[in-house]
C-alpha cells in the first residue's frame, strides 16, 4: 500500500510539474461553459432579410411592418432585380428575400388572390427553413386578420407550458453535454498519453522490471486523472449554477457517484488505447480523431439522436457519453432519483467491465 501511494505521488508530480497541460485541463471546461452559455446558440438571430416591394401599397406596407416586429432579424427594403438578388445571395449579404409584386393590394381586394414570393438561401437549410416559416407565419397572421370580421367564436386557445426550461436557454441543453465531453476527452487523452509516454521514453521498462505489481503501475497512473476529473466536474457544476444560473434540481451526491463511474469508464477506454499503441502520436490521434468529433455528434446535445439513421443510432449506443448525458439531464435538470437512471448506470458499468477486461487481456508485462 505504501508503495502504491508513493507511485500515486509520483504521478501527481508528473501532472503538477506540467503547468501548461494543467492550465488547459482546467481552462477547457471554463472556456466551454462560457462559449456554450453565452456565444453558441441553435437559434437563428441577426439574419438579414430583404424585401423587394414592387407594390408599395397598403397591404405590402402592413406586411413589412409586421415582419419588422421581430428583433431577431434585420429587415431592409430595396428593389432588386433577379441578378442583383443572386449576387447578394452569393456574397452572403442576405439570407432571405421576399418579393411583393406590383398591384399586390389590388389583386388581393379585387381578384381575392394575390401572390408573394419567398426566396431562401438554402445552402444553410436550417436558417432557410426557420426564416421561411417565420415569413410565412407573419403573412398567415396578416391574412387571418383580414378575415377577422368572419370570426365566429369557436376559438381554441392552446396554453403552452415549457417544462424544465421556461426561458428556453441553450445552456440547459449544452451544459450536460459539455460535462460528458470534457470528462470523456480529458480522461481518455490524458491517461492514454501518459502511459504511452513512459513506453516511448523507455521508463516503462524500468517500472515493469521492478518488484511492484505492473497492474498497480497502471492504476496509479489513472488516480491523478480521476481526482482531477472530479475537480473538473465540480468546477463545471459551480460555473453553470453560478455563472449561467442553471438550476440544480437533483442530488449532488448521486451526480458525483455516477460521474465517478463515468470517469472510470473513460479511464479504462484510455487504458485500452494505451495498451494497443506504441507511440504517443498514435495514441493522441486515435483519442482525438477517433473521439472528439464522434463524441460531439453522438452524445445528442448538438444534433437530436432520434433524427439519425437507425444504423447510426445503434452506433451511438456504443458511445459512453450518450448514456452519461442522459443521466446528467435526469439528475441535474429533471431532479430525478436513482430509480430513473439505473438502466443507464448499468450500461456504463457494463462498458467499464468490458473495456477493463479487454485492456487487462492486452496488457503485456514484456515489451516487444
Amino acid at each position, binding site marked *: 500500500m505504501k508503495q502504491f501511494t508513493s507511485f500515486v505521488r509520483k504521478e501527481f508530480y508528473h501532472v503538477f510539474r506540467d503547468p501548461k497541460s494543467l492550465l488547459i485541463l482546467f481552462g477547457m471546461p471554463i472556456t466551454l461553459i462560457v462559449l456554450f452559455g453565452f456565444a453558441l446558440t441553435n437559434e437563428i438571430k441577426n439574419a438579414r432579410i430583404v424585401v423587394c416591394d414592387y407594390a408599395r401599397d397598403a397591404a405590402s406596407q402592413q406586411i413589412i411592418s409586421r415582419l419588422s416586429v421581430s428583433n431577431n432579424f434585420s429587415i431592409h427594403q430595396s428593389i432588386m432585380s433577379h441578378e442583383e438578388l443572386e449576387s447578394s445571395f452569393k456574397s452572403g449579404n442576405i439570407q432571405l428575400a421576399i418579393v411583393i409584386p406590383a398591384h399586390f393590394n389590388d389583386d388581393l381586394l379585387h381578384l381575392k388572390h394575390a401572390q*408573394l414570393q419567398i426566396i431562401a438561401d438554402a445552402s444553410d*437549410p436550417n436558417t432557410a427553413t426557420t426564416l421561411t416559416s417565420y415569413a410565412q407565419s407573419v403573412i398567415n397572421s396578416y391574412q387571418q386578420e383580414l378575415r377577422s370580421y368572419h370570426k365566429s367564436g*369557436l376559438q381554441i386557445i392552446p396554453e*403552452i407550458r415549457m417544462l424544465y426550461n421556461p426561458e428556453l436557454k441553450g445552456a440547459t441543453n449544452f451544459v450536460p453535454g459539455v460535462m460528458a465531453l470534457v470528462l470523456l476527452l480529458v480522461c481518455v487523452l490524458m491517461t492514454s498519453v501518459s502511459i504511452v509516454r513512459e513506453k516511448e521514453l523507455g521508463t516503462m521498462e524500468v517500472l515493469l522490471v521492478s518488484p511492484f505489481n505492473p497492474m498497480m503501475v497502471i492504476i496509479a497512473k489513472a488516480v491523478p486523472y480521476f481526482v482531477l476529473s472530479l475537480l473538473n466536474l465540480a468546477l463545471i457544476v459551480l460555473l453553470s449554477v453560478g455563472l449561467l444560473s442553471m438550476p440544480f434540481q437533483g442530488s449532488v451526491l448521486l451526480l458525483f457517484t455516477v460521474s465517478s463511474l463515468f470517469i472510470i469508464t473513460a479511464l479504462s477506454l484510455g487504458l485500452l488505447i494505451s495498451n494497443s499503441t506504441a507511440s504517443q502520436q498514435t495514441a493522441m490521434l486515435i483519442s482525438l480523431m477517433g473521439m472528439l468529433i464522434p463524441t460531439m455528434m453522438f452524445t445528442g446535445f448538438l444534433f437530436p439522436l432520434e433524427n439519425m439513421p437507425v444504423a447510426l443510432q445503434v452506433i451511438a449506443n456504443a458511445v459512453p457519453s450518450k448514456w452519461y448525458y442522459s443521466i446528467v439531464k435526469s439528475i441535474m435538470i429533471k431532479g430525478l432519483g436513482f430509480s*430513473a437512471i439505473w438502466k443507464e448506470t448499468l450500461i456504463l458499468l457494463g462498458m467499464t467491465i468490458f473495456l477493463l477486461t479487454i485492456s487487462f487481456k492486452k496488457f503485456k508485462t514484456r515489451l516487444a
Partner: protein
Amino acid sequence: MRTLYFLLRKEFKQIFRNKALLPMIFIAPLIQLLILPLAADYEVKNINISIIDNDHSAYSRKLLKDITASGYFKAVGYGNSFQAAFRQIEQDQADLILEIPAGFEKNLVKEGAQSLFIAVNAINGSKATLGASYLRRVVEDFNAGIRLSWMPAGNDQQAVIETVSSNWYNAFLNYRFFMVPGILVTLVTMICVYMCALNIVKEKEIGTIEQINVTPVKKHLFILGKLIPFWIIGLFVFTVGLFGIGRLVYGIVPQGNLLLLYGFLSLYLVALLGIGLLISTYAETQQQAMSVAFFFMMIFMLMSGLFTSVDSMPAWAKFLANCNPVTHFIKVMRMVLLKGSGFADIQFPMLMMVGFAIFFNTWAILNYKKTV
C-alpha cells in the same frame, strides 16, 4: 535546394514508415466524412407526443387524428392521467403532452372558446419551440376547419395570399450539402495542426532535433522541410474528401471555380501549419503540444459556425469567430461549393487568411530557436 530535398525525403519516409499513423491520417478522416454528415441533421421530425383525452368527443377525436396525420408527431401514449404522461417525459419517451380537458367540444360550441393544455420538454429549447409551433399550427388548422363548418353558406369568398417559396442553391434542403464541406474542413484542419505540432515536438522529446540543430541546415530550410509534407498531405486529404466522398457519395457538385477554392485552401493550409509550428515552439513534450492543440482546435471548431450559426452570436463572439481561420474557410467552402460565389465575394476572407498566414508563421519563426 538539395538540402530541402533531403529533408523532405526524410520527413516522408518517417511518415510513411509509421504504420499506425497512416490509417489515422488517410483513412479515419474519410470514414468520419462518410458517417458524420448522416448524423448531423437539425430537422425536427418524429416528435413523440403523449395524449390525454378527457373529452372523448367527436371534436377531440378529430383533433387527435389531425395531429397524427400531420406527419410530425408520433403518438406514444393515450392516457387518462397527467401523472402517467409526465412520467413519459421524465423517461424521455415523450417530448410533448397534449391534454384535452373534459367538456372540450361542449364548451367550444357553447362558450365560444376553450383552452387546450400543452406541456413541452424544453431542455432542448430549439426543439421545444419547433415542436410547440408545429402543434399550434395543427390546432389552428383544426380550429379554422371547425369555424368553416359552422359558417353560413355563401359567405366564403375570402382573400387569399398565396406564397410561393423557393429554396435556392439547395432545393431539397439537403442538410448534408451544408455539413459535408464543414466537416471536411474540420478534418483537414485537425490533421494538419496536430501532425505538424506533434512532429516537431517529437524530435524535441526524443532528442533528435539536437542532431539537426548542430548541422549547417538553415533554420528556414528545416522549418520548410517540416511544413511542406503536411501541406501536401492536407491537399491530398482535402481532394479525396471533396471528390471521392463529397462528389461521389453525397452528390455535391462544386458550383464555383475550383481553382479559386484550391487557391484559398493552399493559403489556409499555410496559416494552419503556422499555428501547428507555433504550438510546437512553445511545447516541450508531445503531451503539452497535444493538449494545447486540442484546446485551441476545440474552440476553433465550436466558434467556426460548423454546428451553430456565426450570425446568431453576440457581437464579442462574432469578433472572436472572425479571428478564427476555420470560420473563414468553412464559409468560403460553403459559398464556393454550393452557391458558386466568385473571387469578389470572398475577398475579405481571402485577405484575412493572408493575414493569418503571415501572422502565425512570423510569430512561430521568431519564436523558434535553433539553440537548446
